[in-house]
């Protein structure tokens, strides 16, 4: 009798959780169908082609890994090693390199405003939206063949599991267990392909609650803040390594960004 009562009690709870999950999925699908991320892509394309800086040049000759001017699919093969800078770079750090090399702008100027707000988005956010949009449908294939890529991947993995800060947190504290979520957001297990693919292929993303497109560098930066870590430098070695680790773990999945988040 007692067992039956428990069973009766448990069933509606279970059904409720399933319903909630379905409703969340429906909501996310509706968000994705009309995403303002597309507006960021349009602005980004215009900025990509706009001549500016002391050299009055556009970014159209920027080498994102496939050669100068090759944008299609480039994001799916980032981060990667670049010979000219002799380091592994993600999209954001590579864009900064191109702004300096092609447009002649100094780093202080290009890094002055990397995270925008809803009233005034940053140039970086627009450019990132454009470049990642050009990789839609391309399979994730961030390389790990060069020794520096290997080292970057290993460093990223170490960062992912490294516990530190006031709360003794690591990335894995939130992203290391199946079927966890915070409010409406699923917390994918980012150290496993399924979870990494789901997350990585939908970032960068337009955040409805911020009315703004957020970059991967912002995502990592904000995770550091949530873990109560010291704020990382934009496009620093550790943030690129962490991005690299996630990108490599997401290997094989078709890129589907820029995404839309709550």
């Amino acid at each position, binding site marked *: 009798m007692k067992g039956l009562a428990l069973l009766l009690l448990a069933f509606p709870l279970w059904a409720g959780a399933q319903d909630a999950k379905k409703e969340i999925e429906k909501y996310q699908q509706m968000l994705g*169908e*009309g*995403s*303002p991320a*597309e*507006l960021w892509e*349009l*602005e980004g394309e*215009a900025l990509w082609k706009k001549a500016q800086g002391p050299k009055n040049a556009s970014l159209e000759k920027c080498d994102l890994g496939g050669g100068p001017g090759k944008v299609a699919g480039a994001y799916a093969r980032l981060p990667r090693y670049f010979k000219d800078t002799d380091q592994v770079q993600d999209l954001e750090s590579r864009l900064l390199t191109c702004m300096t090399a092609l447009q002649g702008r100094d780093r202080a100027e290009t890094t002055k405003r990397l995270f925008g707000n*809803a*009233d005034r988005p940053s140039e970086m956010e627009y450019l990132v939206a454009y470049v990642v949009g050009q990789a839609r449908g391309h399979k994730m294939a961030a390389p790990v063949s060069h020794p520096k890529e290997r080292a970057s991947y290993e460093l990223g993995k170490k960062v992912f599991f490294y516990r530190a800060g006031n709360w003794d947190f690591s990335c894995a504290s939130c992203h290391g267990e199946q079927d966890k979520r915070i409010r409406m957001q699923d917390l994918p297990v980012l150290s496993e392909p399924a979870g990494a693919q789901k997350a990585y292929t939908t970032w960068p993303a337009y955040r*409805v609650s911020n*009315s703004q497109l957020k970059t991967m560098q912002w995502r990592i930066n904000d995770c550091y803040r949530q873990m109560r870590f010291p704020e990382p430098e934009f496009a620093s070695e550790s943030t690129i390594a962490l991005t690299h680790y996630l990108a490599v773990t997401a290997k094989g999945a078709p890129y589907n960004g820029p995404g839309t988040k709550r």
Partner: protein
Amino acid sequence: MAGPMKMRATLGGGGTAAAYTDVRVLMTHPMTTAQSNQPLHFIQNVTVKQNGKTMVEAQISQAVSRNPVFTFRLKGGAKGDKIEVSWLDNKGETNSIETAVA
């Protein structure tokens, strides 16, 4: 200058003669509300035209989100129909976009 707009118009309902045309349009706009400490700035009128004929005349309020997305379903329609969507805000700024039904 007003930011970009993006629109997609597709036929639906199957068969040779489409039963309806789905229009989806994205707009860049701050849609500032009375709650923010900034000057009011929001879209007031949205107009949808099909081959030059006004099909929808909408009056919207501050309750609509920043960078809004609208979808409309128009009766009938054919491939190549010209769909035009325009907006007018409380400051008199305006923007429009035109596309042919795919």
